[in-house]
């Protein structure tokens, strides 16, 4: 009995292997193909706007698409402002948490904290957005004394919270990859635990930490639902100092809010895809920066 089955599987193996290999290849290439197709679609639908709308209008300061004013500048700056502030909030918190979890916390605490942080990543963004709109926005309005709680700052808070799990787990992995011998050497030289962490471990994991930041930023800039609910969506130019505590409109929220009712093939429709292209280029640059830090790490022949 046993021999028979063994024979059968062994005689089938080359075929099975071939089939599985082909399948994996098809799946792998199709994902590349899909990305290319999405990009081509984005170009096809978005590029016409650069011909239909004069550039002065397109990069102007007024976004009133129903009245043929397609100024994307407030939206672009709105996205950049919210994302930048979210990073300013999330990075120190994320780094501190990662260092605590990896270097300071006792083993049992790490076992509890790691899965908890990963659960944070699974909270749907619409839930966070609703939470921000009904609970955080009133608090922001009352404590800061601003006219409305639906501000860039509220959006940045929510985004920071959403980017934290990514930042923490990637940074924690980077710290984890630092060989134990580095720490031992630091301590053997008479450095305290804090000095070892700050002067030896963190610099050694620097490229991983930069990547954590980039990934967190990519997460934040592409986020739509939560941002749409809490930032107020006023397409004003965020240039003055108090802009952080005033409403802003991001690119993602604009596309999400307006795509539903726009007439297909109209200038407005192309403008929304044009925003998609700008957003794509922005995230592409961020990913490129993240990738280049990894390559740099490899070239240096450093850790891992």
């Amino acid at each position, binding site marked *: 009995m046993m021999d028979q089955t063994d024979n059968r599987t062994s005689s089938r193996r080359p075929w099975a292997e071939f089939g599985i290999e082909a399948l994996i290849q098809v799946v792998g290439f199709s994902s590349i193909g899909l990305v290319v197709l999405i990009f081509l679609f984005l170009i096809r639908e978005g590029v016409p706007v650069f011909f239909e709308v004069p550039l002065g209008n397109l990069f102007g300061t007024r976004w*009133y698409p129903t009245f043929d004013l397609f100024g994307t500048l407030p939206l672009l700056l709105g996205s950049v402002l919210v994302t930048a502030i979210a990073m300013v909030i999330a990075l120190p918190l994320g780094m501190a948490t990662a260092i605590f979890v990896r270097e300071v916390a006792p083993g049992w605490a790490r076992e509890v904290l790691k899965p908890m942080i990963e659960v944070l990543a699974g909270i749907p963004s619409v839930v966070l957005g609703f939470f921000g709109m009904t609970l955080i926005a009133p608090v922001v309005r009352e404590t800061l004394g601003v006219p409305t709680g*639906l501000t860039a700052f509220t959006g940045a808070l929510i985004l920071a919270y959403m980017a934290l799990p990514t930042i923490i787990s990637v940074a924690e992995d980077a710290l984890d990859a630092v060989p134990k011998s580095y720490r031992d050497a630091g301590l053997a030289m008479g450095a305290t635990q804090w000095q070892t962490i700050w002067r030896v471990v963190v610099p050694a994991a620097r490229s991983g930490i930069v990547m954590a930041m980039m990934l967190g930023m990519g997460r934040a800039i592409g986020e739509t639902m939560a941002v749409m609910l809490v930032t107020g969506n*006023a397409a004003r130019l965020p240039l003055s100092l108090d802009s952080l505590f005033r409403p802003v409109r991001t690119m993602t929220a604009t596309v999400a*809010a307006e795509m539903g009712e726009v*007439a297909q093939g*109209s200038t407005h429709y192309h403008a929304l895809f044009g925003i998609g292209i700008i957003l794509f280029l922005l995230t592409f640059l961020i990913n490129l920066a993240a990738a280049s830090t990894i390559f740099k790490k490899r070239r240096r022949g450093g850790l891992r």
Partner: protein
Amino acid sequence: MRFIFRHFSCALRAFHRVLRISPLPDGGLFSFSSLISRLAIGLSLLSLIWMPVACRPRQANPVDGASAAARTIENKGSDTLVNLALAWAEAYMGRYPDVRISVTGGGSGTGIAALINGTVDLANASRAMKPEEVAAAEANGISPVEFTVARDAIAVVVHPSNPVDRLTLRQISDIYTGKITNWSQVGGQDRPIVLLSRESNSGTYVYLLENVIRLGDKESDLLFSPDTLLMPSSEGISAEVRQNPNSIGYDGLGYVTADQKVVAVARDVDGPYVLPSVETVNDDSYPISRPLYVYTAGEPTGAVEEYLKWILDEGQTLVSELGFVPLR
């Protein structure tokens, strides 16, 4: 095999029916909610159709199918009305399965043009036909008949604690264009005004802009202040109005909930300040309201007449569900 095939063709027919009531010819495909609802309808219809009973009457009586094809009502026009027209069509077809109603949007002008060209039975319009449109129709041998099917009123809302309870149209215009930025300028407390609006693609946004902000002046190029917060939903507006004493918002009267304070509106400083209600909207004393029309090509007869009768009678119960004001 034949059994399966029969049900498959039946399902196809049902799908065809669902697709025929697509709300918008362009962009309709991208309307997420309509896509979802269409899918949901499609799926629920499919599940119904797979029960053998659902198809039997049609199979047994082909004459019935033929007469159904004859009673198709084409309905086109205003995007403001399209969801209501769709709700009416669905409810009516549910009740009278032998009538087919095809609803498309595109705007009041599109619907009226189609009526003039004789390609639709009913044209939905959120404005009255212009004299030149009536003349064009009569030149084609069509005399349009106007029916008021519902009314659309916009309520202006503030936080319940806000002492301001009356505003003129001019004041609302100045508030929304950013000329008035503090509640004390209109008799309230010393607080900044936070402007709330629906998204720019909503019919309510356009109506408020044209009739309140621009005060009906076609030459005006006033726009909402760039500081206006564009909320993705009625719920977004009511949530902010409920919790923020600085805010002012507006929405279709049917969407206003009890925990917001509705402001009385006057046409000018001397005019009476009127709160919106079914009565004040219908007697035209509330300034921010408009009738919604359906036009027929000549006096309606047959299926169209029955459908219009139903809209003006039982159909009125659906009107308030969609945020409009019923005729009584």
